[in-house]
Each structure stands twice: as structure tokens, then as C-alpha cells.
């Protein structure tokens, strides 16, 4: 296995608040990498640093051999990183297919004139794009909702649609931010199968998840963040036994030990508004 992404000493400060402190993580190609930690540990902040929403105060992120720190989010998508959101951020008044199409469009080139006057290239890209968008919906098990507005899908299906939309951009690395949040046990099982299927298709997955059963069952390796610092790192079974991890979860009063199901889906983890 080769290194796909390196998070190298990333520190993120908002005013006086230090949300991430010298975080180092290396993701290898083809793995499912779990990122866990109590609410407010900085997990979503790290996602924002990787995807270009934030520019880290110190440190850098390298992806596929080049630095991506300082690039625009859409440029990072072009390089092959795409994500989902902890709080669902679909385009609510667009159909499920159009949502995925936005991701697929990221790889297209038509100009506004091509669109306005229906150039042959535009026509071809639209037809191919529609086929691809439907394939990704099928892949995520929600093809039957292709023509429904995203806002009318059930919560679990909206989470699947977010994954389909991200896959539409053809990522090498997929970042999932609490994909199981708000799902019932049946939906969670389906999600686990989907994430494995995505990995087996050759996409590396970086997963933030509160549900310990989901994250420990899926991940090849796990890193634990607490108060913006990486406090543990390794195979799931090792990390679960790490006293620092147990302490982090008990100490914050999160109500569950590592290895058990921590309360999932609580809003406000990370520093999204910062």
C-alpha cells in the first residue's frame, strides 16, 4: 500500500482558540480510515482543512504527491478529494439526479455558449452525464428517487444521496462526515455495506463516525482526536483498549466508552461555524 494523503503538522486556530494542534495523519491507498473523538475534538475542522474550506494556520496537507494546502475547494475536488457533510447539505430544490449531476459536471468542460446554443459537445456531455448520474444513484441504492427533489427524500436516503453526489466527482479519496448519523440500525447496516463496496471499487475512505460499532467494524485503521490533538492511532482493536481513548470519552461526559456506541448525530462537533 502506498501513501495517498499526508496531513503534516496541521494546526488550526480561530482567534485565540486552537481547534487543531499539530495533527499528523497518513492515509494509505485503498484503506478505510476512521477518525473518531468526542464532540468538539476537531474532526470536522480537519475535514475543512483538507477540503480547502479552511487554510490551516500551520502545517500542510499533501495529496497524491503534491501539496493541496491553499488551493480552492473546487480545485481540490478536481485533484480527487470529495466529501459529505455532517449536517446534510444537498441542493434541496434540485432533483436527486441533478444533485449527482453537479458532481459529474465537475469533470465537464462546456462553456455558457455551448449550453445556450446546445453545442454537440454539450449535448454529448449531458447525455453521458445523465447516464453516469443514474449509475451513481443506482450504486447507492436510490435510483428510484432520481426525479424527486432532494428535500423530499428520507433522512437516510439523503445521506446516501450525499455519498452519490460526492462519488459523481470521481474521487480517489472520499471523506464521509458522520454518514450514519440519524440512521436506524437497518440503514446503518446498509451504509456499512455501501462504504465497503466503495472501498472495494478502489476509492480510499476517510470516515468520521460517532457510532463505534460502525467505525470499528469498518475501519482498517483509526485515529482519535481529543481537544484538537491526535491522542491515539492504530488498528481499531488496539485503539479501543488505549487508556487515553477511554479517558477522553469518559472525561467529556459523552456517556459512552470507546468500544461501545457513543451518542451519535449530535450537532456541533468540530468547529463548523468558526
Amino acid at each position: 500500500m502506498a501513501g495517498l494523503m499526508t496531513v503534516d503538522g496541521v494546526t488550526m486556530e480561530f482567534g485565540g482558540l486552537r481547534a487543531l494542534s499539530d495533527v499528523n495523519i497518513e492515509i494509505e491507498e485503498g484503506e478505510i480510515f476512521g477518525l473518531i473523538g468526542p464532540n468538539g475534538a476537531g474532526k470536522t475542522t480537519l475535514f475543512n482543512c483538507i477540503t480547502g474550506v479552511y487554510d490551516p494556520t500551520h502545517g500542510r496537507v499533501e495529496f497524491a504527491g503534491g501539496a493541496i494546502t491553499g488551493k480552492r475547494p473546487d480545485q481540490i475536488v478536481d485533484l480527487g478529494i470529495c466529501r459529505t457533510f455532517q449536517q446534510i447539505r444537498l441542493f434541496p430544490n434540485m432533483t436527486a439526479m441533478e444533485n449527482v449531476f453537479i458532481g459529474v459536471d465537475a469533470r465537464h468542460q462546456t462553456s455558457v455558449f455551448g449550453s445556450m446554443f446546445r453545442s454537440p459537445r454539450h449535448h454529448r456531455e449531458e447525455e453521458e452525464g445523465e447516464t453516469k448520474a443514474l449509475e451513481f444513484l443506482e450504486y447507492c441504492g436510490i435510483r428510484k428517487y432520481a426525479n424527486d427533489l432532494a428535500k423530499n427524500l428520507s433522512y437516510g436516503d439523503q445521506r446516501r444521496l450525499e455519498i452519490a453526489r460526492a462519488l459523481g466527482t470521481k474521487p480517489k479519496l472520499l471523506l464521509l462526515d458522520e454518514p450514519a448519523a440519524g440512521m436506524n440500525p437497518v440503514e446503518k447496516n446498509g451504509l456499512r455495506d455501501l462504504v465497503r463496496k466503495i472501498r472495494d471499487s478502489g476509492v480510499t475512505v476517510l470516515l468520521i463516525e460517532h457510532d463505534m460499532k460502525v467505525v470499528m467494524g469498518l475501519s482498517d485503521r483509526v485515529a482519535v482526536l481529543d481537544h484538537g490533538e491526535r491522542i491515539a492511532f492504530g488498528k481499531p482493536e488496539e485503539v479501543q483498549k488505549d487508556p487515553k481513548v477511554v479517558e477522553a470519552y469518559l472525561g467529556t461526559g459523552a456517556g459512552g466508552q470507546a468500544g461501545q456506541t457513543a451518542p451519535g448525530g449530535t450537532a456541533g462537533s468540530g468547529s463548523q461555524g468558526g
Partner: protein
Amino acid sequence: MDCNPGLIGPALITGLILGSLYALIALGYTMVYGVLKLINFAHDAVFAFGAVSTWYILGQVFGLVGPQSGLTLVIVLLAFLMIGGLASGGVAVGLERVAYRPLRKRHAARLSYLISAIGASFFATYMLQQDFLPFMLGPGPRQYPNVIEAGAAGFSFSLMNVRVTGPRLLVVVAAFVCFFILDRLINKTSTGRSIRALSEDPVAAQLMGVNVDRVIVTTFFVGGFFGGVAGALYGTLFGSIAWNLGFIPGIKAFTAAVLGGIGNIRGAMLGGLLLGLIENGSTICIGPEWKNVIAFTMLPLVLIFRPTGIMGERIGG
């Protein structure tokens, strides 16, 4: 107040013609609002450049005067609409670059955009009043090339006791063709999808690979383009233009956009047509000098009773 039923026909037809113009201009306000949540108050100047550019390029440079006919007329008319559209689209893009983008990069407060827009609008308008460059109109009115015969010799037909001339028909037909093209562009193409995505959630759009700057430029261009088409139609309809031609149609179109639901493209079309019909419909019962009073009364009325306008804020259909 005594109503004159004989005026119903003229009011409807004039309302439809002017309403089509308002609607075309309103598209620019509503599109920019849809993606940036910003009222582009300089759009009246963008519209004016559609008339000024065609007056200068086709009238002054190519020396087009007098009515054309047959195929020549069709080509000339297409040239008018395209040149007007491209010129205004270009002005709108330039405006975005100069007056808005620097503010956007600095995450300026919303009020700053409004002030910048008003400044840009007055700057462009009063530049047209100067005469040190050939395309500037100077202080007086200028004759616009009358390529369609609007007099007794020209094409016309009678509808509800109103004489519908070539220019009048052209305004309505061209406007509806534009509505059709834009509606398809927004709802059926990749460009339209990215505009809608940006209007719904700019952060998510960028994180799904949408190049935000490019889509914003596209939005200004497309809105400006249709404003420019409206400018060329305005010149053809009235036969003369002056440096401040953008002012009244501009704020009428803004009113129309609010009436239809600012940010909503079909709303802008509907709002424009309705505003034209309402203000001209009022002349059936009260004097024409009340037209503007009635039109602008719509602004507070809409904001009080239906703040999101008739069709709400959604940009797409």
C-alpha cells in the same frame, strides 16, 4: 374615477409590450440576486448599454438608417439583438470585476455591495451624458436607427382597436424567445445546474467542484445579455434614446423582479408582464400620469403582504 372601457384594448397591449421589456430587464436583477443575494442596482446602466452600443455600432459606425426589408431586415435585427446582448453582457462582467469582486474577496458586508452598485450605476449613467468619446450620447436625445418601418407604410395589424406595428410585435416575440432560451438554459443545462446549485448553497457547490467565480461571471453575463437585448428593443420601440434611458425601466424592472419573487427567474418574467399590465391597466380608470405611482406602489405592497413575491425565492422552474 370614471372608467373608460374603450381603453381596455390599448392598456392590455401596451401593458404586454412594456411588460415584456420589464421582464427581460428583470431577469438580470433576479439572476444576480439568486446567486449572490445582492441587488445589482447598476443593472439599469447595463441595460442602457444595450441601446447605446447598438446605436453606436450599427447606427454611427455602419451608418444604418432607414427601414430594411426581407432577409436583410432579419439579419439586421439579429445583429441588433446580439450586439446589444454581447455589449451589455460584457459591461455586466466588467462591473462584477471592478465593483463587486474586490468586495467579495474581502468578505465585505452586504450594504457595501449596495453602495458600490449605486455608485457604479451613477458613474456609468453620467459617463453616457458626456461626449468626449464617440459612443457617448451627450446631453440631448439621439435618434435610434429605425430599421423597421413603424409608420403607415410599414407592416401592421389591428388588434382590439390597437395598431400593432413591427417594432411592437418584435418586442413581444423577441422577449418570449429569450424567456424560452433562458428557461431551458437554467433548467436543462450544466450551466443552469451550476447556477442553481450556487444559489441554493454556495459552500456545498464549491465543495462539489463548482468554480464559483466562473459561475458568478456567467450569471452576470447571461443577465446582462438579456438586459442588452432589452436595450436594443427599447431603442427600436421608441426610436430615440437619451443618456438616462436606463433609469425608469431599470427601477420598474427591479419592481417587477420583487413582485415576481426576486431570485426566481420565472417570477421575473411573470412579474414584468404583470407590472406592465397593472400600470397600463390603471389608465383605464385613472389618468396616465398616475402610471408610475401605481407601478411603484407595488414595491411596499409586495413587501408587506407577500415578501417573497408571487413565486418565492427559488431560482429554477
